[in-house]
């Protein structure tokens, strides 16, 4: 009997129905930890798993282990607000995020796992005419790069998204919106599970409950990792540990341009779908809200960081309040709808707001980190590009901008011009 997860399809569902129990198999197999790998990836989140998948699929690397302290997909890949988009201002970012967005389009079929990519549109609302030039600058940059973007005035907004009632009197009246129609949402957990399943099928060992505690180095070459299950030799090591990246830097004695902050999200009780897009609004006086409605009917919301370094995964009440204030301002009809759950993830915030995919101190140690708010939406692109970096030792053009050296050289990728502060609300 094969241990491998069978191909998924409507036919398979029917066959499983006829076959009774035993038809479906674990998505990834809990293989034993071996003592030597070509590549050890630390962190079975979206980036680690996607990189493992691409290393095995695109580069034919045989012996790959993904070591995970807790569970597959237990970190930010399963804690975000599921938004995907590529409407970034800077070319280094928008080409990369666009690569991801294109891959989202076919990922379900590539992985044979439905990740429910829903290109329902991402609408960035402007609450003042003063914001329009910046939106236009971004949208025009996108259009010239061949990426979809539309600028809607209030009248167009009203036609397209009447649910937001753009002409309603508000403290900050809506002025315009930048829309990326191909942006949308993806079922977050499915991404981790789908990659884990596909990587496992290609022979990748996914080892849960395996914490990496140190790196063994000899003559400036990393030899392997110490884990709570013993030492594992590794030819190459990739760290993809999101909120715990700062500690990895400290472990290796390399200060990193990263602080770990909490980002929370919350969901309402399910109601009949009325919001068929993703709305994003930033309000003057410390406030941001992004809101969408899931296919279950719950309103999924998020906003700013909690605002101080934290690993607690317990979001502050005040930030939840702040996000909900914004949501009620955008949709006053939601006043009587109840919030049922709030949660938080630990985000690896860099000092310019853009990620880092690069070597880390040693020639055979790599880092995939600094995802700030944007980690989930890049997973397919990050996995492919990072796999190339790890396999060939050379960063593909798409991620050349994400080198650690950019802070010293000044080639910063500071989308909002916020400067070297993860938090400035």
């Amino acid at each position, binding site marked *: 009997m094969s241990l491998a997860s069978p191909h998924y399809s409507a036919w398979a569902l029917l066959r499983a129905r006829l076959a009774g129990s035993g038809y479906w198999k674990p998505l990834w197999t809990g293989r034993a930890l071996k003592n030597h790998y070509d590549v050890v990836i630390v962190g079975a989140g979206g980036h680690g798993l996607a990189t493992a998948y691409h290393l095995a699929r695109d580069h034919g690397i045989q012996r790959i282990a993904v070591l995970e302290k807790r569970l597959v997909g237990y970190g930010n890949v399963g804690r975000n607000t599921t938004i995907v988009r590529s409407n970034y201002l800077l070319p280094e970012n928008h080409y990369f995020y666009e690569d991801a967005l294109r891959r989202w389009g076919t990922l379900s079929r590539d992985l044979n796992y439905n990740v429910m990519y829903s290109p329902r549109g991402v609408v960035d609302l402007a609450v003042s005419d003063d914001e329009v030039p910046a939106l236009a600058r971004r949208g025009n940059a996108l259009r010239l790069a061949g990426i979809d973007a539309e600028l809607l005035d209030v009248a167009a907004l009203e036609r397209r998204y009447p649910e937001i009632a753009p002409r309603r009197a508000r403290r900050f009246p809506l002025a315009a919106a930048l829309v990326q129609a191909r942006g949308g949402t993806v079922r977050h957990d499915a991404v981790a599970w789908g990659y884990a399943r596909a990587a496992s099928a290609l022979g990748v060992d996914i080892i849960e409950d395996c914490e990496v505690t140190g790196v063994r180095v000899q003559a400036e070459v990393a030899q392997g990792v110490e884990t709570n299950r013993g030492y594992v030799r590794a030819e190459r090591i990739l760290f993809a540990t999101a909120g715990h990246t700062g500690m990895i830097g400290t472990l290796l004695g390399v200060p990193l341009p990263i602080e770990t902050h909490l980002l929370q999200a919350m969901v309402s009780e399910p109601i009949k779908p009325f919001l068929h897009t993703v709305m994003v609004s930033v309000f003057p006086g410390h406030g941001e809200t992004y809101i969408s409605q899931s296919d279950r009917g719950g309103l999924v919301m998020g906003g700013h960081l909690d605002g101080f370094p*934290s690993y607690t995964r317990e979001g502050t009440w005040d930030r939840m309040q702040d996000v909900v204030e914004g949501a009620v301002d955008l949709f006053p009809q939601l006043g009587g709808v109840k919030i049922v759950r709030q949660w938080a993830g630990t985000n690896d915030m860099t000092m310019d707001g853009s990620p880092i995919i690069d070597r880390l101190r040693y020639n055979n140690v790599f880092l995939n980190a600094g995802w700030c708010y944007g980690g989930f939406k890049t997973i397919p692109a990050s996995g492919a590009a990072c796999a190339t970096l790890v396999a060939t030792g050379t960063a593909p053009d798409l991620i050349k901008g994400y080198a650690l050296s950019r802070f010293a050289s000044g080639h910063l990728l500071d989308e909002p011009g916020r400067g070297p502060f993860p*938090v400035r609300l």
Partner: protein
Amino acid sequence: MTVLSCPFCGVRELSEFEFHKTLPNAGDDPLSATYFRINRVDDSQEYWQHVRGCRAWLQVRRNPSTGQVLEMILLGTRT
């Protein structure tokens, strides 16, 4: 973490305070001081401002894994 104790104002809700940055502990050169951090899960030196209170700048030592405040210094004075 729900409150902080301002050395001048006493116990106030967290929302009155704003975190600014972790202390430049990765080196004194401007590049390190501006961008690079030594992240410890149990001990973080930070600048905060009691911006919606007395506006004092504070140096706060915290355990970011628990939120526990280990030390709180009122800045702006030279002793």
